[in-house]
């Protein structure tokens, strides 16, 4: 943080936009259309460094799409999105936006970990192979360095003996924990979770949530799209309720969950709680 940022609480991006200094993610009026379908209708959100933000909402509300906008897996139709003070996917020069090249976007993404609902582990690589792939290919780490880090991460997610197992040989919960280790191997400053426990058998949900809880306690900034209200309440610093492409309500999890102000939030919570 610069001297000026510390004094004013504001930081200046490369193209001259002033952003709150402690915000890691800043979304400004984010719109996303798929053809004629409007999925996001203007999302304004900020995620502070070290914050765990949970996003809840009915299916089709656009929460996953918003998450995918953060690491530019989806291009915004309108609006701006910054991560770490960098405009995602574009460069702004003299008021004009220039699309970034593929490798520039890849570089931006390498600082953002993502965990998917369906794990998306690489089936042709072992657990260890999955974890060391990106550090070796993208960060050009040596094999021994990447392997040492991978073993440490497997230990951390509770799978020290599964290094040589292939995804097919692991349970859903184990696969998801390997996927989390794979994302962490890139040492990201932000982790995105897209319904990480929705594809799991009920008895396997806990082991994944435990890993995420540890991660949150370690100070990781996290944005979690989830249906796990218990997790949101205990671990989350903030809770966002989305419906029909807009943020309907946000605040502390306790506030939103026990005393929802908006009718739509109340209706949704009455169904899931």
């Amino acid at each position, binding site marked *: 943080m610069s001297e000026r940022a510390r004094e004013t609480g504001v930081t200046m991006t490369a193209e001259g936009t002033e952003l709150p200094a402690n915000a890691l993610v800043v979304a400004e009026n984010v719109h996303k259309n798929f053809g004629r379908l409007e999925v996001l209708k203007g999302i304004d959100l900020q995620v502070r460094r070290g914050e765990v933000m949970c996003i809840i909402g009915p299916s089709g509300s656009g929460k996953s799409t918003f998450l995918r906008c953060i690491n530019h*897996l989806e291009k915004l139709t309108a609006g701006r999105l910054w991560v770490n003070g960098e405009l995602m996917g574009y460069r702004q020069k003299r008021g004009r936006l220039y699309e970034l090249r*593929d490798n520039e976007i*890849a570089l*931006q993404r*390498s600082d953002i970990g993502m965990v*998917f609902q369906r794990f998306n582990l*690489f089936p*042709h690589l072992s657990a260890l192979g999955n974890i060391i792939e*990106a550090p070796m290919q993208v960060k050009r780490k040596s094999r021994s360095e990447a392997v040492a880090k991978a073993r440490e991460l497997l230990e951390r997610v509770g799978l020290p003996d599964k290094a040589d197992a292939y995804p*097919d040989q692991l349970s859903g919960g184990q696969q998801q924990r390997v996927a989390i280790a794979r994302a962490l191997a890139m040492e990201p400053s932000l982790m995105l979770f897209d319904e990480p426990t929705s594809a799991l058998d009920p008895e396997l949900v806990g082991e994944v949530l435990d890993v995420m809880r540890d991660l949150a306690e370690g100070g990781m900034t996290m944005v979690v799209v989830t249906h796990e209200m218990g997790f949101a309440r205990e671990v989350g610093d903030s809770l966002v309720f989305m419906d029909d492409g807009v943020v309907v309500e946000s605040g502390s999890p306790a506030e939103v969950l026990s005393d929802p102000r908006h009718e739509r939030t109340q209706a949704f919570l009455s169904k899931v709680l």
Partner: protein
Amino acid sequence: MSSQTEPVNGPGSPEPAPQGGRPAEPVTAVPVRYPERWVAAGFVLVLAAMFVHMLFTNTAFNWPFMFDHMFSEPVVRGVWITLSATVLSMIIGVILGIVLAVMRLSGNPVLVTVSWLYTWFFRGVPRLVLAVLFGNLAILYTTIEIGLPFDNYWMPWLGLDGDARFFEIDARTMLSGYTAGLLALSLSEGAYMAEIIRAGLQSVNKGQTEAAQALGMSRGRTLRRITLPQAMRVVIPPTGNETIAMLKDTALLAYVPVTIELFYQLQAIGARTYQIFPMLVAACLWYLAITSVLMVGQYFIERRFNPGQYGSIRDRIVGGAHR
């Protein structure tokens, strides 16, 4: 609902004992009989006996003559030519196929169009026609020159003498029979392989690409490290097919003409000695033998790219052990 199932062991009653542990009588039943299988077997056996009888009694086979000439020096050389043409054209074809498939899926409109046009042409023209066409390319170009294009127009226009050509090859040497035939087969194979590899690449789940991108891998790296290796699994069986088809299509080289090729040699002996049929049988046997060897090779390559982690093919089709 639970209130209806609970009274069996209501509150206060002891825990229900887990099921199992009782002695069981193994199922013994008379299996279904299939008498028609025996009828079919008898029928086929009689047909096979008639066929073998004919092989030994019909003098037109002239087995001693066939075995004498099947391993003669020009024929064995023909086998090597056929094998080398198969292997080389498949290697070139696969490389071309990968390039064309990636072009086709690149999203770059120029590359997509070029790839489409290529596939359209080389799939549209019969291989036999291509073989003869390439055998006669020397009519079109007597020399093949590498240099800057349209130099005969712009060099004089700039007031320069001479040409902008760096080296030249006599087309009649370069496009001699074997090279011309190999070129025809390779280029044609590239078009078919492009479609096979494209199908393979498209069969890889979109989540794989997204996971790789989310890790900060560029598109090229994602293709090389994640998508292509997974596509291989789908690509190998049809590529084995293509290799076997290619082995047989090398017989088309006879029309380029490539006189040292296997089928040409066998036919030549047959025509010279009026022993047409034995030499045709020899051709069948040679192609069958080489195909069998290639099939063994395919088995091992499939196993290499389809190792334990996917479960056996049987598991995947009939239902896996892991899932």
